[in-house]
């Protein structure tokens, strides 16, 4: 079975990259705004950013961005597995970023379950989830920053 070579490149489509960057930015911003820090440190006082201090608004946007991100991750994963894998391979930094993102997604989904009425999750496990979710985001930002500075790609050509 042959597939047009033009679909294969080291980086995904530009539109997919933009969606990825926008959702990661929104998720990070609304995720950190779940802590009561944006009002305290005047960030929510900046014109246009008042919504960052409204917890229900940021919580809702976090969910919307998470929906987009989940769809994107599923798309990218399946696209890689059935189309791109023959021509591209994940780099070491790609594996690290993928693993961290997987951890963020799993802990985030468990926190979504926590938020439902009658959630069965134990309180100590919830504390662990909260810390893990935030810790993994910090780790991802650091690794992503490193990759940006040293121009490390997610994939290399085979």
């Amino acid at each position, binding site marked *: 079975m042959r597939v047009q070579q033009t679909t294969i490149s080291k980086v995904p489509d530009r539109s997919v990259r933009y969606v990825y960057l926008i959702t990661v930015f929104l998720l990070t911003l609304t995720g950190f705004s779940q802590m009561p820090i944006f009002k305290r440190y005047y960030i929510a006082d900046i014109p246009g950013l008042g919504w960052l201090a409204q917890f229900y608004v940021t919580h809702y946007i976090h969910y919307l961005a998470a929906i987009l991100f989940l769809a*994107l991750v599923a798309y*990218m994963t399946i696209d890689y597995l059935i189309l791109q894998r023959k021509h591209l391979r994940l780099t070491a930094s790609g594996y690290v970023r993928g693993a961290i993102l997987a951890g963020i997604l799993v802990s985030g989904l468990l926190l979504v379950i926590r938020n439902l009425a009658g959630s069965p999750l134990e309180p100590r496990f919830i504390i662990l989830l909260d810390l893990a979710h935030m810790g993994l985001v910090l780790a991802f930002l650091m690794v992503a920053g490193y990759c940006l500075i040293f121009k490390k790609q997610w994939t290399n050509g085979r």
Partner: protein
Amino acid sequence: MGQEISRRTFLRGGIAAAAGLAAGSIPGASAAAAPQGKTQLATLLDIGKCIGCGACVEACNETNAHKYPNPRKPFPKMYPNRVPVEDWSEKQDVTDRLTPYNWLFIQQATVNLNGEEYEITLPRRCMHCVNPPCVKLCPWGAARQFDNGISRIDSDICLGGSKCKKVCPWDIPQRQTGTGLYLDILPSFAGNGVMYKCDRCYDQIADGQLPACIEACPEEMQTIGPRDEIIQKARALAKETNGYIYGEKENGGTNTLYVSPVPFEELNKAIEKGKGKPHLKPVKDTMAQANNLTTAMVLAPVAGIAAAVGKFVKLTKSSE
């Protein structure tokens, strides 16, 4: 005989449980006696019976005094300066509102309805929501909900950011600066004390006793029991007295149901509201908005997979 628990039956159940963990021989009481019980317990407050004597407030203070804050002074200098110091340690005797040292107070109102004047008093405290936003949205998991429906803020973990108060539809939790974990982390830059509120005497319930406010009430205006049965009882009482119910639907449902002889709309207009003095307005389900997106979250990966497979099929077809 229903499972709702009056003061006497609850005590009998508690004694029986304590006497030999009576293997649940008294329905409801054994569930109430254990914080790990899977049944959410609700309280029914018959406002028509409240005489505003304040016995519940007194009992609450006596029973929970050991949980009250003991702040370290002087307080750390806060940065930036806008961070408010909230100190109730010199005003521990305030009982006309919620404070870190007063988790229950009596709200008063005079309501004129159909030419009749009603002098209303009612105890106010945490509503113990079925899906409590204070618990669910705490960034650290410092607030927890017991299986029996009690929501409680752990004063050993809370950093006092006050998010729980901001997301609570009734602004129930109250902050005391100068105490808690934040003092050991970055006291000037993060956190601001500990949030306090009614924990419905979770420790007393664990010991098979009633919450102090219920036990102390001379009019037995409060009843505790499994939520379903308390709802039935509240509806029956409202029907019998031509009364009105508050707390059954508010914020998606709470474990505190008030039955009033006057509409809560009128009562809300008449009570004094403000800081530490919660309203009685209708409250929409605050957690529902985001939780309604859960289905979309489950379907999102399916959509992503479908898009990738669709792309593969399209490319395969066009290359043939």
